[in-house]
């Protein structure tokens, strides 16, 4: 019951937030430009095309009517057509979604496997040389421009050493998409060659994205563990003479890691933003590469569609994390 209240509570805020996102994108695409129709039509459009688009989009109507129409269109899944591919933007985005999700999900797993243990060790051995070294490494990891790091990795591992593929998601055309996630598809087909090839192509992009993500996880885990270590319940349990190992495993880590798990939402945002440039560098055929190509070819509908999709995904993930946190943390549902 309490969980249900929590979910409803969070959902109530979900819709105004998405509406707000729509309003921002509408403002950027319809109010800022002097002639939105010219933007949608692209650089080489004739005046007739622009006029036709203006009439079709209802740009001669008052703004509030335009906004209602805009929301109606989005709800029907109509984000306009891409000038670059000539297909509906919504379709293009959906076909590229699995590639980006696969990349970000693998990255989150890798970053957690590296970041959580390092964060715990860093906190338990506070002010040791390891803690200081990790402080510098994590700050550095968050200071590197991911596009530059990606290029350096390519330069070293693909161009000089030749041990990783330079770019792309797979050799050749890849398997006929079942789920669109190559790793899962390869497992369904039980084709180890495809699986190996897909994983091989993932190494560098995942490494690039995982660096800032792991750095963030290390810092949050460290802070969480330190907080738990200084709490009254740990003091109590230590005073009761519980073995240190038991206190740490059973009480400190369990409480500290709840905090880390809830940071996944934030990290997902970092990854989604990072995917834009990382996909561009590695030619990874996901949403990010689509967005960059759209920017380069002034494909206006496509850029706005990407903004909308990325924003919505971010909001949804945060909603899920919020609800999960509420379910895990009894203080939230009280």
């Amino acid at each position: 019951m309490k969980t249900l209240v929590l979910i409803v509570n969070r959902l109530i805020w979900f819709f105004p937030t998405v509406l707000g996102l729509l309003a921002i994108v509408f403002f950027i695409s319809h109010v800022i430009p002097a002639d939105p129709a010219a933007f949608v039509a692209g650089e080489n459009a004739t005046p007739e095309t622009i006029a036709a688009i203006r009439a079709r989009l209802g740009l001669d109507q008052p703004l509030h009517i335009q906004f209602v129409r805009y929301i109606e269109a989005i709800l029907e899944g109509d984000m306009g057509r891409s000038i670059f591919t000539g297909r509906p933007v919504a379709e293009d985005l959906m076909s590229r979604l699995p590639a980006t999700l696969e990349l970000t999900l693998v990255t989150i797993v890798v970053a957690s496997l590296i970041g959580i243990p390092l964060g715990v060790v860093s906190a338990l051995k506070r002010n040791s040389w390891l803690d200081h070294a990790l402080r510098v490494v994590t700050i550095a990891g968050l200071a590197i421009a991911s596009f530059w790091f990606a290029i350096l990795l390519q330069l070293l591992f693909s161009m000089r050493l030749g041990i990783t593929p330079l770019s792309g998601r797979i050799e050749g055309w890849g398997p006929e998409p079942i789920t669109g996630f190559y790793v899962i598809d390869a497992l369904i087909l039980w084709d180890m060659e495809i699986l190996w090839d897909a994983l091989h192509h993932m190494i560098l992009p995942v490494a690039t994205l995982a660096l800032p993500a792991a750095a963030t996880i290390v810092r949050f885990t460290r802070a969480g563990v330190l907080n738990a270590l200084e709490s009254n319940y740990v003091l109590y349990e230590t005073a009761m003479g519980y073995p240190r190992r038991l206190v740490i495993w059973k009480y400190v880590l369990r409480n500290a890691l709840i905090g880390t798990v809830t940071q996944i939402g934030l990290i997902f945002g970092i990854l989604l933003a990072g995917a834009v440039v990382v996909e561009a560098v590695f030619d990874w055929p996901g949403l990010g590469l689509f967005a960059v190509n759209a920017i380069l070819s002034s494909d206006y509908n496509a850029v706005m569609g990407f903004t909308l999709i990325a924003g919505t995904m971010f909001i949804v993930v945060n909603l899920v994390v919020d609800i999960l946190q509420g379910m895990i943390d009894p203080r939230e549902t009280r």
Partner: protein
Amino acid sequence: MRRVLRKLAEDRAAMLGLALIVLLVLAAIFAPWLSTHPGDVAEFHTARRLSPPGPENWLGTDRMGSDIYSRLLFGARITITIAVTAITIAVIIGVPIGLVAGYYEGLGSDLLMRVSDIFLAVPQIVLAIAIAQTLGPSIENVILALSATYWPFWARLVYAETRSIKNEPFVEAAIALGCSPLRVMVLHILPSISSSIIVRTTIGMGGTILTAATLGFLGLGPPPPTPEWGRTIAESREFLPMAWWYAAFPGLAIFMVVMGFNLLGDGLRDVLDPRLRRAGQHGK
């Protein structure tokens, strides 16, 4: 204040950060004198294109034969201009909104905070891309895109801090003595929350510089021949693996500067705001 500075001076990491920032500022101010080829921001020497680092061109030359070292120095000016202006605008918008929304309670305050929440609900770079794409590539538009996406961070922070101290005795005393709301906000609340604002602003500088470089890399920054660091890296990709210096040094410059702000911000936070442990979200 002196105690804070002394504690900060003991933090070697923070001092390294400060040194990196000072280096950036000096490079930007003295770019015409420090550079070996001051004209190379616009001039090219095709005979010398893509020559490796050496005595003539310390960090090598780019595809036009222009000196990379000199262009990096002038690029520092662009970086500082963009980051300082964008952050200043974001602070000027965000802080008053946070103060007012935190001081008064009611529908208006809720609405203001909801609006900033919505802005925070979209990854900054994504929003900045959309705005910069609409406005077109120029230095002013990058600044506009960045300040439009970053102000909510200050609004949120100042709002939370104002809410947490507005029932403190010293604020109530000021109100009881008949101070106007404006006076209470500016002279009593603002000074006591300034340390959080300073910390957030220092770390925000690093994030803004990264985002600005990313916009440049994507071709949404100031147009060529501007020696913007991100754009330089984008240009260099065609000439890899041969001309490694072309990509390596601009990225190193970005890294050093962002690292500088992050280190200093981290140290400042430890000294000024012990409540906020080093959990931080840099690069946002």
